[in-house]
C-alpha cells in the first residue's frame, strides 16, 4: 500500500503542477471570439476585453494611411470599421472580399482597433491538407 501511496503522490504532484501552469497560461492568452453583431450587444467590462472578430473585407474599403490601414469588415449584414495599427505588413491574402480575422479591442468612437490581422482568400482558399500552413504570418507563436 505504501508503494502505491508514493506513486499516488508523485503523480498528483506532476498533475497539479502542470495544471497550475496551464491555468497561468490560460489567463495570459485567452482571447474572446465575437461576431460583428455581438459586438454591439456587449456591455461593461466585456467591451474592453481583447477579442477576435471575423468577417469579410468590404470591397473597395481598404485605405492605407501613414501609420495605419483602415478597412470595413462585414458579416451578418452588419459592418464594422477597423483601424489596423500593427507594425507587421498585412498578409498577402488580405485583399477585397477576403475573409479576415482581426484581433484587438473596440475603441470608444465605434471603430475597432486591430493589432493583428489574419486573412484568407474567400474565393479560392482550400484547406491545406493536414498541413501546418497557416494562411497568414499570424501572431501565433510569438
Amino acid at each position: 500500500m505504501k508503494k502505491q501511496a508514493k506513486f499516488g503522490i508523485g503523480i498528483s504532484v506532476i498533475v497539479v503542477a502542470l495544471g497550475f501552469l496551464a491555468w497561468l497560461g490560460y489567463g495570459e492568452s485567452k482571447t474572446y471570439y465575437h461576431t460583428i453583431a455581438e459586438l454591439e450587444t456587449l456591455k461593461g467590462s466585456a467591451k474592453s476585453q481583447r477579442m477576435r472578430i471575423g468577417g469579410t473585407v468590404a470591397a473597395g474599403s481598404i485605405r492605407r494611411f501613414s501609420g495605419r490601414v483602415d478597412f470595413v469588415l462585414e458579416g451578418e449584414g452588419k459592418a464594422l470599421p477597423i483601424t489596423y495599427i500593427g507594425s507587421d505588413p498585412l498578409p498577402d491574402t488580405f485583399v477585397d472580399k477576403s475573409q479576415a480575422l482581426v484581433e484587438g479591442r473596440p475603441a470608444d468612437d465605434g471603430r475597432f482597433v486591430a493589432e493583428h490581422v489574419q486573412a484568407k482568400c474567400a474565393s479560392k482558399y482550400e484547406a491545406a491538407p493536414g498541413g501546418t500552413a497557416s494562411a497568414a504570418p499570424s501572431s501565433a507563436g510569438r
Partner: protein
Amino acid sequence: MDVFGSFALILAFVCAVYAFGGGIAAIITRHPLLVKSTRQAGIATCCLIFLATFSLEYLFFSDNFSVGYVVAHSNRDLSTFYKIAALWAGQEGSLLFWSFLLAIYVFSVLVTYRNKNGELMPYVGVVLAGVQIFFLTLNNFVESPFKALAVPGANGAMDLVARADGNGLTPLLQYPEMVIHPPNLYSGYTGFTIPFAFALGALLARYPGEKWIHLTRKWTMIAWMFQSMGILLGAHWAYAVLGWGGYWGWDPVENASLLPWLTGTAFLHSVMMQEKRGMMKVWNVWLVFCTFLLCILGTFLTRSGVVSSVHAVANSKIGNLFVGFMAIVVLVCVGAYLKNRDYLKSENQLDSIVSRESSFLFNNLLLLVACVAVLSGTLFPVFSEWFTGDRISVGAPFFNKVNIPIGLLLLFLTGVGPLLAWRKTSTESLKRNFGWPLGIGLFAGLIGFALGFRQFYSLVCLILCVLVGATVVLEFSRGARVIRSRSGASFAASAIDLTMRNTRRYGGYIVHMGMVFVFIGLAGAAFNRDAQKDMRPGDTIQMGPYTLLLQGFETRPEKNYTAQRMLVEVLRDNKPMMMLYPEKRRFATTVENGTMVAIYSTLKEDLYVVYAGQSPETQLPVMHVFLNPLVKWIWFGGVVVVFGTLVALLPNRRAVLVLSGAQQAVGQALPQGLMPAVTMREGHD
C-alpha cells in the same frame, strides 16, 4: 475516366459492406469459405480504391477540365510534380487519398496474414472494413471527387461543360514539401488503424496472450514514423514558406497532428510493460483506441474547420458524419471493453518507484497529460461556447507553459528509463550507469551558463540533452567494447554488430538520440532575435554578426507566376559573404501572393530573411530578418529518428557465434549493458 473512377468507388463501397457483413457472418458461422470470401472482398475493396485514385490522377495528367475537382486544383501550366500533389490539394481528393493510404495498409495486412492467425483475422478484417465503409461513404455520397462540371441548360436539365483551363493550385501549396508532407502525415493517421483493428479484434475474439502486440508492433512503428516525419515536414514547410520566422504556432491543425503522435509514443513504450511483465493491459488497449480516435479527430479538425483555424474550410456537412463515426467507435470500444474486460487482467504489480516499470508509467502519464492539455487547448473555443456562450481561444503561452516542462521531464526519462532495471534498481547500478552522464551533463551546463545560456528552461534542456546523449553513447560503447574484445573487429564494426543483434533496443537508442537533437534545436528558440525595417536600395540591417545590404529589386516572369525578389548582400565583419534572395510571387491564376523565405542555415544558427510586403506607413518594401539559433538540429534530429525507427524495424540478426562464445564464458561476469544483447529475446513477428 471520371465515370470509371466513380464506378470503382461505388464497387469498393459494395465490397467493403460485404467484407463487413460477411465477416460478421463468418465469425458467427465459422464457415471457411465465408471467411475466405470476406477476406477477398477486403482485398478487392483495396484494389478498387487504388483504381479510383489512379483514375483521378489520370484526369489531372490528361488536363481534363470537365471535372470540377481538376478545374479547382490544377491548370495546364502546373508542373508534373504538383499535378501528383493536386490529388490531395482539396477536400474531396484528400478524403480519397485517406482511403487510398488506408487501402495500402489494409491490403498489406490482409495479404501478409492470409494464412495465419485464423482465429483473429476475421475480427481484424471486420474492423478494417468498418473503417473503410465510413471513408468510402464520404468518398461516394458526400465528397465525390469525380463530379463533372455542369450548367443548367435551356430545358432545365444540366448540361456538361468543360473549361479551357483550370484555376491552378493555391500558391501556398506550391512548394516541394507539399508533395511529401501530406502523404507522410496521412500515412501516419491511417496507419494507426492497423493496431486499432488488431487491438479491438483481439479484445472481441478474446485472443490469448500478447500475440496482438507482437503482430502490430511493426505496423505501429511504421505509422509512428510517418506521423513523426509528417509533423516535422509540416513544421519545416511552415518555417520555409509562411515567413513568420517560426516552425510551430500551436495552430489547431498542427495540434491535431501532434495528438495521435503523443498517444502513439505512449503506446510504443507501454507495450513493453505488457510484453515483459504482463501489466497495463487495459491501459494499452485504451491507448490504441484513443490513438485511433485522435487520428479520426485530427482528420476531422483539418477537414471540417470546427475550430476557427485560418486554413481549414468550414464544412459542417462532413462534420456531423465524423462526429457520428467517432461516437460509434467509442460505443463499440466501450462495449467490447465492458464485455471482455476480465480478459485484460494484469499479472503483476509495480514493485518500486525506481524501476523500468515506473519510468514507463511516468513517461505515459506525461505524454497523456500533454495530450490532454493540447486537446483541451485546441478544442477550448468549442467547449467554452457550449458551456458559457462565449467563444474563447487560448494561445501559445498556454501550450508552452504546460508542454515545455513536460518535454523536459520526458527528455529526462529518455535518458534514465532505458538504464533502469525491471522491478527494482539498486543504488549501486544507479551510480554506475548515471555517474558519468550526470557529471558530463552538469559540466556542460556550467560551460553553457558561462557562455550565456541563462534562460532557465534552455539551460535545463542543455544539461538534459548532454546527459541523455552521454547515456546513449555509453550504452553503445559498453556493448561494442565487449563484442570487440571477443571478435577483435573494429569499434565501429562492433557497434554495428551490436545494433544488428538487438535492433529494437539499439534502434530505440538511435531514436532517443534523434529526439535529443530535436530538443537541442527547440532550446534554441529561447534565443531567437528579429528585426524589421522599411528598406530603400542601399539600406542595411544589422543582425548578430551579419550585415544585410539591400542592393535592389529584380522582377522575373516564371511559368505561372511572376517573382519579385530582393537582392540582399550579406556581409560578415564587413566582408562580402553571399547573396540572399527573399521573394514574393504573384500568381497569374489567383489574386494571392506567395512568400519565399531566403534562409542561410548552419548548425549554429539560421539567418532567415523575408520580403515581408509593403509598410502600411511609408509604402516602402519591408524586410524582416530573423536570427534563429540551432534550428537545423531539429530537421537533423528528425532524420535520425526516422533512421532509428528503420533500424528498429529490421529483424534481429542471430548471433550464433557469439552466443556460443558467451556460453563458453559461463561463470565469467558479463557487463550489465551486454546482457540483453547476447540473450536473444523471443522472436517478435
